């Protein structure tokens, strides 16, 4: 995750237009109240909160995945737009490059 986010930040630094999409269980990465410190793991929530500093403001979560998990956007670390699957698919379709984690 850490090294994946490094790619995201680097892409922004190279003035690439970056869209972050969270689907399926990927959504859990954005959950509030992650206590990485109990396992002494790296706390990625700080990076997510800092995304806007890097001009990454386009963060989407898949609406169907949110519903299936009964998660509301206010339970997430950062403001996101819940977007239906078919719209997300269209956005991915138009990307030059798709990275998955």
């Amino acid at each position, binding site marked *: 995750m*850490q090294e994946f986010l490094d790619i995201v930040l680097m892409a922004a630094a190279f003035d690439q237009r970056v869209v972050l999409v969270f689907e399926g269980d990927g959504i859990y990465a954005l959950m509030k109240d992650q206590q990485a410190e109990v*396992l*002494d*793991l*790296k706390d990625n929530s700080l990076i997510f909160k800092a995304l806007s500093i890097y001009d990454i403001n386009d963060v989407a979560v898949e609406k169907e995945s949110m519903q299936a998990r009964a998660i509301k956007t206010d339970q997430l670390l950062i403001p996101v737009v819940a977007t239906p699957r078919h719209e997300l698919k269209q956005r991915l379709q138009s990307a030059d490059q798709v990275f998955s984690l």
Partner: protein
Amino acid sequence: MKISLQINASPYQHQAADSAWHFIQAAILSGHEVYRVFFYHDGIFNALRDARPPGDERDIVKRWSDLNAKHGVDLVVCVSSAQRRGLLEQTVAKKLGGYQAALADGFRIAGLGLLMEAIIEADRHITFGA
């Protein structure tokens, strides 16, 4: 109870090394003996002396070294897994002063026989992997 462990995954990319380390802490606190930790497959990459994680992250290799220093836990790196992956070709290891210079403090190199011994001698053998 005697417990031995096997680590099959590289550090950082997988949580295996973290889970095993926390498990061992708890096992020692509960009064159990950790008989051996055997590093196999990509697990051998836990032993690289020169790992330098960013300053704000846990140092997994150092954790293992400390575990050996404080509790005498036997840390064994599989020689065939290591040679296959380039951890310690002899000619280079010699330049650095033998195997021990490629491995972090507290690790030793040995064959699969020591894994078998651990499995047979310990009451439980627990695998952590990718």
